[in-house]
């Protein structure tokens, strides 16, 4: 009950704080952004100080009074310290990497210290996501990676960013909400399907890809990240010739079209998911493939850039260009 009303209050505060300011690319935290309230630990600290005060009152002991006053003063001083642990901090949204729906997208932020001060134990988190702790001790800027689960296909925003700190004594929590202009692209969630139906081949022969596509060995090429580990030339690696990938001829010959109409039995989201699955798979197997969606046609190609283009088209299909 209390927890519920507490979280409702937090949500209200968040909404209010965010209404006051629009999305930003880069922001320096100042007093009109930073909120500060005692934590539960701070509340118990105050209770402890008051119990000590009661002890002083009852025993008419001025030193115990003094101890209690010292703790209360400590609380007051720590308000400033907690506040200053956020004040002047600059947060810049750097960018985001695309990912599949349901996976964790990576966002990159840059924290920069104002006026060469130290910032310690600052927690960054998206709403309802695990926080990431970071410091600026000794260096004046630091990149922070935050992750959030991609909820749906297309462009999406991770929601407001919570920047908070309990440092130095945990008695108070200073925090701010800010809406960054970060957005990430979420590709459709892959829907595995064992084979490409007939009619996907460019020559119309209806040949099915056997899924391995590794018949004719052509030669070696330098291994690059993203290539299938199955194609690593282990023998050459063991001989100390470096990391190479085997090249197979049949992939170079084939051209496949991934077509929206290949799976008439599926609804359109599932079709996109299936297309995504095949895109990833064909890219991994270095087959040339093209994409046909209603209104979109990407000619067959290969490579990372091509893959990104295809996936992007899948992610944005029917979503407008934004």
């Amino acid at each position, binding site marked *: 009950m209390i927890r519920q009303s507490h979280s409702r209050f937090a949500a209200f505060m968040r909404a209010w704080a965010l209404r006051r300011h629009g999305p930003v690319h880069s922001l320096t935290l100042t007093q009109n952004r930073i909120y500060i309230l005692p934590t539960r630990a701070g509340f118990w600290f105050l209770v402890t*100080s008051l119990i*000590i005060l009661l002890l002083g009152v009852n025993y008419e002991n001025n030193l115990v009074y003094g101890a209690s006053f010292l703790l209360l003063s400590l609380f007051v001083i720590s308000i400033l310290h907690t506040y200053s642990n956020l004040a002047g901090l600059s947060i810049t949204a750097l960018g985001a990497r695309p990912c599949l729906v349901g996976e964790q997208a990576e966002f990159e932020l840059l924290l920069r210290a104002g006026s060469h001060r130290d910032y310690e134990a600052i927690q960054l988190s998206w709403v309802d996501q695990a926080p990431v702790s970071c410091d600026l*001790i000794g260096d004046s800027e630091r990149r922070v990676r935050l992750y959030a689960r991609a909820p749906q296909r297309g462009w999406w925003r991770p929601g407001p960013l919570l920047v908070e700190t309990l440092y130095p004594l945990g008695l108070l929590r200073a925090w701010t909400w800010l809406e960054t202009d970060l957005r990430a692209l979420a590709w459709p969630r892959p829907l595995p399907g064992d084979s490409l139906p007939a009619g996907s081949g460019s020559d119309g022969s209806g040949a099915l890809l056997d899924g391995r596509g590794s018949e004719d060995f052509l030669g070696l090429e330098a291994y690059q990240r993203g290539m299938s580990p199955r194609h690593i030339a282990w023998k050459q690696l063991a001989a100390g010739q470096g990391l190479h990938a085997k090249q197979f001829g049949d992939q170079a010959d084939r051209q496949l079209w991934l077509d929206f109409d290949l799976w008439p039995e599926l609804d359109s989201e599932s079709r996109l998911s299936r297309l995504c699955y095949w895109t990833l798979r064909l890219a991994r197997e270095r087959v040339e493939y093209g994409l046909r969606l209603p209104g979109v046609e990407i000619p067959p190609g290969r490579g990372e850039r091509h893959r990104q283009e295809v996936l992007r088209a899948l992610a944005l299909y029917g979503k407008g260009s934004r």
Partner: protein
Amino acid sequence: MKGVYQLTRPALVWQLLMVVVVMIPHSLRLPWWLPLMTLGAIGWRLLVHLGRTSFPHWSVKFLMAITAGIGAVASIGRGNGPELAVALLVAGFALKLLEIYKRRDALVLIYVAYFLAATELLFGQTLLHALYVLLALLLITAALNAVYQSERHPDFRRPLRAALRLLLPALPLMLVLFLIVPRIGPLWYAPMMQEESVTGLSDTLSPGDVSQLTGSSAVAFRVEFTSGRVPPPAQRYWRGLTYDYFDGRRWQAESDRRTPPELSDLPSGPLLRYQMIIEPSGQPWVYALDYPVSASWPLRMAPNWTLRAPSRLRQRAEFALVSRPLDALPQALSESAQSRYLQLPASGNPRARELAQRWRDEDASVDSLVTRTLALFNRDFVYTLSPPRLGADGIDDFLFETRRGFCGHYASALAFLLRAAGVPARIVGGYQGGEWNPYESYLLIRQYEAHAWVEVWYAGRGWVRVDPTAAVAPQRVEQTADQLLADEPGFLSDTPLSPVRFGRINWLNQLRLRVEAINYSWHRWVLSFHLRQDALLQRLFGELSLWKLALALALPFGLVLGWVALSLLRQRRPKTLDKVDSALLRLSQRLGAQGLGRRNGEPVGLYAARVAEARPELEPLILAVARHYDQLRYAGHDDNAVRRAYREAIRACMRRL
């Protein structure tokens, strides 16, 4: 959202340190096994941290908790509430150590530590105690900070620095709160911390009691004269109680509770006003100069013109007293009072009775009786703190056999003789003398200055003070006790290292007086601050009002907080530029004046190239600077020759500018 929080190693070390520091002063009072248990828990926790063992099973902890609880109750007893509470808290504290692994557990431990550190002040209130507790609070705060310290940058020293930066500005705030916040009386009866200890005089006097007191240099009370005049040493008789009833061996203090005497009887004269801080004695007596005429609440005047507190003094107390110095206390004696002050046991001490009878037959006047007794004492009696033991007829033995004794012997012999001769007399117990502290202008009366003398009732004059000890050893009254008694074997036997012993070494004595003066100010201005808060605030602010107090609170708070905020937000990391960098910085600043400053993050080589392009005449020099800089910084050629070449290149550049 909140994951399980593992204590970092510095946080753990700080916690253990904090536990030790909080425990040390308490452990002297606790049953011996509790500190041992705490040490065991600390050891166990360390082993857990090192991975040698694991946290004990909950049943083990449960068993330990039960055992510790029962043990504490058994060895302290339920009657002693606060001690028991502290012992139980300490036991819980030690056991909690065996389960700190989450942030919340650590916080419980830290908050209890704050509380335990504060309770230490209930048991001792010296300046040293206060400083120790302050240190403990600092370390606990460091431990708290260590819990919230970044897990990526664990560090042992940073929490201490953070705690200092938090606590130092908190001190002035505490001072302001201490001054301003009104004190209220106890909300409910709180049992005292000290065990019932009785020091100072007792309610019976048998010659020999006082000798125990001379063994102690503990403070009895301190007096500050507010009327300005300080009585000379020979007149510093602090009356506490009278011994009226003699049972043959012992004198008993009067115990009736009749109505107080009428004060109007006293003749007029100058008044002595003074403020007394009296140490806890476990007795209700408050010592006043002859004769108190008024005293602050809640003191009560007893019929024998002495002052009583409403209950035994178990805490340091402070009273304002007014006395009128008089030679005699004009008080009429009723029949019953007369018979009480003539009381003697039916038999015993026959030779003393016979002597008194003989003197009375020769001359019945009170003066002559007193004079003859004092003359007797003066002839061949010796003042000593270690008199021989007396038999069943103690007065006889003293008067006719041993003839050695101290104030109690002389007073009881004189009172006995006078009563036997039909003159009302009583023994007064109190203190005589006091040491003047020139640094803080107050009189310090110690236990070894306890004294006994006699009051004799003269028809028509009333009670007159007669100090038989003065007849034997006038120095006892005129000098301070430590000067007189220093060579006596019994003197200060309880405190062999008391600084009073070394009173004859001048600088040491001055040092002692200074320390005493600090103690006195500490007592006056801190420990009994609640007694003078109102007066002080009125002196500072005139008529008190709520808004004045609010202002007095808000203004210093504003100043301190403003200063802290400024220093926090302006704070910069110390620049740690070495000679190489600072020389380059100087050069780039000089060039910057001509629009050729080094840009943020610009490598030295590129910068030098840019400068060379803009200022061709500098080209060889600036390129040399960059080359040497690279050698020093990146090529590992950090030797003196390169440094010298670098410096010279920079200097040459500067000359060209």
